[in-house]
């Protein structure tokens, strides 16, 4: 019984899309659903750095996308622009919150639609914390 609840506790972060690690980086987030034929999608991460030093988000990958990368949307003088954003540093004790209209994980060459209510497997790489394996919930809007 005790061992089972411990195992459940260990599972909790996976269930909620968060993945704590030894370096103090905790990642959660969500992805927006897509429809058949749509080749690009977006996911939004929340990265908390509980560690003693800064860390840098250096890459993302997903088995359901041919290519994935962090991009940043910006409205500059009324014009929507999107540019790659490689290597986002998160200082110790700070949080990076990706949100619509700003930083996002761009998923390209989707092999299957991201279905509402299911999850997106995603690997996030950090310079110090290494890799985090996530399953992000697929939903229409950010978690409240």
């Amino acid at each position, binding site marked *: 019984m005790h061992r089972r609840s411990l195992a459940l506790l260990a599972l909790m972060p996976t269930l909620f899309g968060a993945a704590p690690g030894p370096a103090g980086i905790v990642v959660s987030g969500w992805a*927006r*659903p*897509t*429809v*058949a*034929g*749509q*080749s*690009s*999608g*977006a996911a939004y991460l929340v990265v908390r750095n509980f560690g003693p030093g800064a860390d840098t988000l250096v890459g993302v990958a997903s088995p359901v996308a041919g*290519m994935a*990368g962090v*991009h940043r*949307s910006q*409205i500059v003088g*009324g*014009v*929507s*622009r*999107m*540019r*790659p954003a*490689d290597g986002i540093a998160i200082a110790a004790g700070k949080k990076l919150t990706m949100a*619509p*209209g700003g930083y*996002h994980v*761009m*998923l*390209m*060459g989707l092999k299957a639609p991201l279905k509402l209510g299911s999850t997106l497997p995603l690997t996030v790489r950090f310079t110090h914390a290494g890799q985090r394996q996530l399953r992000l919930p697929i939903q*229409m*809007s950010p978690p409240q």
Partner: protein
Amino acid sequence: MSSDSNQTSVPTTRLRRLRLIVWGVVPVALVVVAVLWLRPSVATSGAVTQRADPGSPNFQLGGPFTLTGADGKPFSSAKLAGQPYVMFFGFTHCPDVCPNTLARLVRLRQQLNKGETPFQIVFVTVDPERDNPQAVGSYAKLFNSPIIGLTGTRAQIDQVAKQHAIYEAKVPDASAPDGYTMDHGAAALLFGRDGKFVATIAQEEGDDAALAKLKRITA
């Protein structure tokens, strides 16, 4: 005698014919003058199909257009006659700003509480090379609410973007699909039932201001 009557009858028939011609020409001339007078921008630009450039004093945002619908058939703006509509330019490989904007327009439309389509939402791609009718159609379906997805030839899209003062540019991006992304004007354009441009909704604008404008075009 007979020659005499002939001499007098010939001028009267000529006069009658002249009178008929004059009365035939006068209304036509009046119509031409009226059209030229009522449409000074067309008259001064000298071209009927080309509208004034954005920035010129004669520029009127919007106007009739023909693009291609999700069914692959021509879509004329005449189909929007009598309905208010909101136009947004984007592209289907845009995973962030475009779906955010369309989802927001759908949400605001529901918040108006005036039925399913108190105004039409028109999505025009600025990336017709990749976005065929099927692509814009399935993209428009993403939002579980009626959205009209439109594409066209590059020339058609450029013309419609220009007449709506929408900036668009292809930007190289090695990390994007096909090696490029699109910069595009991000404002939503609001049109009244008469097809006349009323206002824009900017990305950074709050919901209250946006709703007030949507109420205006649907009043």
